[in-house]
């Protein structure tokens, strides 16, 4: 049996915003290991540091203490090597670019050839089921489709890690279910390592192999739950006892984590 390589590793990670009286400890002594191919959800109430942790991995925030490695490198080195694709809460497509051109944005910046760009655009648009929408402008698409386009954009340069910060938070339940299902399929096909921030317990349980329950003030990891669910997950797995059991554990974790402040 081979051991899966570690992709992201945090050791005693701390991050404090500001100084003196106004200092806010956003992350306190965070320890976490994410293996290749994991789907890790970060769940917790506002202020628990889940987004901040994701931003640390992406080198959009600088930790003030501890050690964090991404692919064995510092987060900033990993960012320079374009190790990850990042999906924000808002799709943030450029309104002046068509969907295909939006997906091409990182490719242009990274200097891919025109032919390569074209091939990759087609590939990722197909992956998020947006083939045929390449020539549309963002305003011509629904919110869910826009978010799928932004996922395609993050996938286009084929980074091994996909970081997603509440990507479906602004969408309604029905669209969200559909996108969750698609995301799982995509994850299975691409074998990527995914870090996923969410507010929703069912979403976290449905998607993840590992659920990181966080609690606020100071932001820290309360519990890491390894999901016993199989990787193959139809939507109705959510009605099985195993699923309900995991969801219950997450809810308990959130409740306990919240009550001790």
């Amino acid at each position, binding site marked *: 049996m081979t051991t899966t390589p570690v992709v992201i590793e945090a050791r005693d990670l701390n991050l404090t915003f500001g100084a003196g009286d106004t200092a806010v400890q956003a992350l306190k002594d965070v320890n976490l290991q994410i293996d290749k191919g994991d789907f890790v959800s970060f769940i917790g109430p506002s202020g628990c540091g889940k987004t901040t942790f994701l931003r640390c991995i*992406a*080198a*959009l925030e600088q930790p003030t203490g501890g050690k964090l490695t991404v692919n064995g490198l510092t987060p900033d080195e990993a*960012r*320079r090597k*374009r190790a*990850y*694709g*990042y999906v*924000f809460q*808002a799709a*943030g497509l*450029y*309104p*002046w*670019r*068509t969907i295909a051109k939006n997906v091409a*944005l*990182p490719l*242009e*910046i*990274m200097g891919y050839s025109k032919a390569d760009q074209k091939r990759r655009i087609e590939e990722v648009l197909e992956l998020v089921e947006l083939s045929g929408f390449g020539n549309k*402008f*963002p*305003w011509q698409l629904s919110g869910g489709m826009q978010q799928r386009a932004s996922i395609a954009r993050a996938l286009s*340069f084929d980074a091994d890690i996909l970081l997603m910060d509440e990507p479906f938070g602004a969408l309604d339940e029905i669209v969200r279910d559909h996108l969750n299902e698609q995301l799982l399929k995509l994850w299975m096909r691409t074998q990527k390592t995914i870090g996923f921030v969410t507010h929703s317990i069912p979403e976290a349980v449905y998607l993840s192999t590992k659920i990181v329950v966080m609690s606020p003030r100071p932001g820290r990891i309360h519990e890491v739950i390894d999901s016993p669910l199989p990787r193959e997950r139809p939507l109705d797995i959510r009605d099985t006892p195993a699923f309900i059991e995991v969801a219950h554990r997450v809810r308990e974790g959130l409740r306990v984590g919240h009550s001790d402040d």
Partner: protein
Amino acid sequence: MKTLCSVLVVIAGIVGIWYLACVPMNIKGVLDQAQRAGEVVSPETAKDRRDVKAWALVAQNSFAIDRVWSVERPRLPAPHQVVTELWKTTVEKKITSKRSLIYHGQVTLTATLMGFAIGTGLGILLAVGIVHSKVMDMSIMPWAIVSQTIPIIALAPMIIVVLYSIGVQGMLPKAIIAAYLSFFPVLVGMVKGLRSPDTMQLDLMKTYNASGAAVFWKLRLPSSLSYLFASFKIGISAALVGAIVGELPTGAVAGLGARLLAGSYYGQTVQIWSALFAAALLAAALVAIIGVIERVLLARMGAKS
């Protein structure tokens, strides 16, 4: 159709007020002229009339009312006089004639466009510098603001004198005055436009490890375009004002400003008003052209039509 009607009603109202205003404005001149022609007016002498209210004069000399709209050098020319003058000096005169408003207009237009080009070029360059360098932001921006607090009418002669002493004259000094007025709105609009991308959009670029140049060309510049066009519209009309003001202190022989000045020397109010209207029409046309370019460009950039 309904909007068109409303617009026409408003215009008719303005023209009506204008015609009405001609009555008290011009009545004294009309009566002076009538007296010289031997007609009986009341009061009989100009000296006595001086203290009588304009509307009272109108009431006492109702025979002269219709003449207030056709005085040769009226205090306030009637709309049709201005229109006639505009027609005579544009359509009926050869373009090469010194009395053609088209001739004068194109002189001013050339200076305006030249000044607008210099001004917008400068404004955009400074804006790019200010957005990328804190030092430039702190050192240039205050001066740019101060520059606009100096009345251009005071500064224009200085610019012309200084440039003349180093041998620059003709079109360029006017263009520089036009540029002086038009660079500022472009600078302010462009700084705002280049800074309009939000944190998320900038973070996104960071996740791609994008260079400063890539962020500028692919994010900041396209984001700034709608701001830039709003500034262009202000800038081009400011450039026109600058070009006209630049023509006043030089004793220029050509240009709408020269036409205004000549009109005021000789008390040719009709000529002044028609030059003013020519300038206004020119400004409207320039702004409209920029509006069309904006719409075409933004439509290409996928703006909702």
